[in-house]
């Protein structure tokens, strides 16, 4: 009988070793799960929350920002306005490629400081060509360079948005005023939307954003610039925490040349409508059928 009992003993030993090795391997998860409360885990989709529940969630997020980033912030759930459909236009004749909008976006939207993230990318394009392959997004010389023009690209808030169609959990959707929003607390981080977007408009939080307390923009929107959690996708929201209250997007305010025109497509007196009616406008990659709300035009 020694043979079987030795076998059993070895098995028990092996099992114990295996279990403790597993516990050891999973050790890093302890710190990670510490930040994850039950309320957070069970939180429902943005659209299923009542106003009161959103109030609670917001309170929790404000508290978290205080604890983790050492900054008092106000997060508001700004809702879309009746009779407003946002649109954006940009004059390629006027834009000089200075990337002031890129920087303003970075600051306004509480982007991660280490990666210098921004929702806007500016392509330096070759005069006489519309081939993006000849474009360059990483130019570092003085602008505007001779023989070049500049093409800033951000989320086009497509009316037929592939990113919305592909999301398996409806974590991203089109708001009534045309803005495509993301529920950062619902996204599972599969990045299917990032693969689907034809305009490189989506960003993933590869790590927890790092921002010094004094650089945090405390005026935050629930669906826009609040500090995003790790492991979820984000994108340009036309600064909905500003624009839904009648202010202009940060990128427009920062633009020194006035190349950017933002407004309500339904307002016949708006500058945006004037541009759309009087300039020769076009959209990017029209052939894909995404129906962008971001229009480009040349002045001359």
């Amino acid at each position, binding site marked *: 009988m020694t043979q079987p009992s030795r076998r059993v003993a070895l*098995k028990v030993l*092996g099992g114990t070793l*295996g279990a403790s*090795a*597993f516990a*050891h*391997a*999973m*050790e*890093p*998860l302890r*710190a*990670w799960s510490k930040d*994850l409360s039950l309320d957070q885990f069970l939180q429902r*989709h943005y659209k299923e929350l009542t106003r009161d529940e959103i109030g609670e969630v917001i309170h929790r997020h404000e508290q978290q920002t205080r604890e983790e980033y050492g900054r008092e912030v106000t997060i508001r759930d700004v809702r879309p306005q009746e009779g407003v459909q946002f649109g954006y236009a940009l004059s390629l004749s006027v834009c000089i490629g200075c990337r002031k909008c890129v920087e303003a976006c970075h600051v306004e939207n509480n982007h991660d400081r280490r990666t210098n993230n921004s929702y806007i*990318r500016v*392509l330096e394009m070759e005069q006489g060509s519309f081939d*993006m*392959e000849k*474009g360059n*997004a*990483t130019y570092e010389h003085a602008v505007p360079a001779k023989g070049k023009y500049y093409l800033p*690209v951000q989320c086009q808030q497509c009316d037929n948005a*592939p990113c919305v*169609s*592909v*999301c*398996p*959990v*409806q*974590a991203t959707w089109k708001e009534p005023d045309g803005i495509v929003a993301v529920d950062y607390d*619902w*996204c*599972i*981080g*599969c*990045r*299917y939307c*990032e*693969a*689907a*977007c*034809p*305009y*490189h408009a*989506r*960003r*993933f*939080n*590869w*790590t*927890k954003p790092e921002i010094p307390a004094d650089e945090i923009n405390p005026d935050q929107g629930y669906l826009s610039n609040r500090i995003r*959690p*790790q*492991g*979820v996708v984000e994108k340009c929201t036309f600064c909905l925490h500003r624009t839904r209250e009648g202010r202009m997007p940060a990128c427009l305010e920062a633009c020194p040349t006035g190349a950017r025109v933002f407004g309500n497509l339904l307002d016949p007196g708006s500058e945006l409508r004037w541009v759309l009616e009087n300039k020769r406008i076009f959209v990017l*990659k029209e052939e*894909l*059928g*995404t129906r962008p709300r971001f229009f480009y035009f040349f002045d001359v």
Partner: protein
Amino acid sequence: MRKDTHAITYPRFLLRVIGQSFEGSWRFYLWMTVLTAIALVGANAWAHQLAEGMQVTGMSDHVSWGLYIANFTFGVGLAAGAVMMVIPAYLYDDHEMHDVVILGELLAIAAIVVCLLFIVADMGRPDRFWHILPGIGRFNWPISMLTWDVIVLNGYLLINLHISGYLIYTRYLGRKPDRRWYLPFVFLSIGWAVSIHTVTAFLYSGLGGRPFWNSALLAPRFIASAFITGPAFVILLLQLVARLTRFRVGDGPIRTLTSVLRVTVLLNLFMLGSELFTSLYTGGTHGAAVTYLFFGLHGKAALVPWIWSAVALNVASAAILHLPASRRSRAWLDAACVAAFAGVWIEKGMGLIIPGFVPSTLHEIVEYAPSMAEWKITAGIWAVGLMVLTIAIKVALTVLTGELSVEPRGRADRAGTAERAGEPAAAEGS
């Protein structure tokens, strides 16, 4: 045996099966220990990835899918191929092939487990897994192809679990399996196998913003390569089983599978060639990704060694399979299978996913190389898959050979039930 006793015999069956998974020769223990060690390294890397964020991977906003999704895609092909190769068994009523069916089903189960683990590894927030559960979360069905994939993959897992579980359980009870309880499911699973790989191809080919994937040929190409990896793996598996156990299926199935392979390796190369011609001759945006993949673009050429290895492996396997040597010598056949398997792993893995992102949608060329963490997690997941496969096959063979059965005198009368198969050697020699 009366029906109502299943409530007792089934749990007891499960218990004995679980007990059986921990029994074996020193070779079995060594193999499982090595796999466990690799799996643990992977688990540890995954825990780090979760805690520190996916910055530990080589992925970026430009190349936002990498090694995980590449392996996922390949795994779906393996799962589909494992079952599609049973088609000859039922279509041509090839009786010897019937014995291979169960191995195919078990391989499919292990491959699906691998796929699901790769999806979890790729998720930024696996803690929100319940968001994708139909009825509990918000399931974006039928619009999102990913929800279709969730349905077909899990459905496929269930079907194959049912078939193999039923066949093994009836054999355990010493009864003849009732055809009505498994044959319809076998046919269902064959059709379903096509669907899992088609839906997975649609995942990519439906994206208009990614010209490299946006091709109607993608789904057929996926199916063709599934018909390579499935048979190639099973040919190797059958020989291994024959060497390690006394379970025999004869030469017929290997011959059948080899003839399937001979056709599919060529078909796969042909379709690859068609894609190449269309994009390179036309040029333009579609051409840019293919040029990057095969020749590099603007001095960036990270994928070039990958894809040419794949081409070399695929061509080599096709050549060997059509040489008389592969008929005469198992060594040549095995070499062809290994080459075909590895070739498809690259071509339908890294070679398919990464060029979708390079050049990016704004035509930037940002390259990708898997990080150490990704390699560890990938190895760990495959190790888990091999563990599942090993245990599943071991249990199945012990039951099929009569080693494990409901009869208390199972050992005494096993000669009767095991005449064809013989007992597995894995249970002895420790």
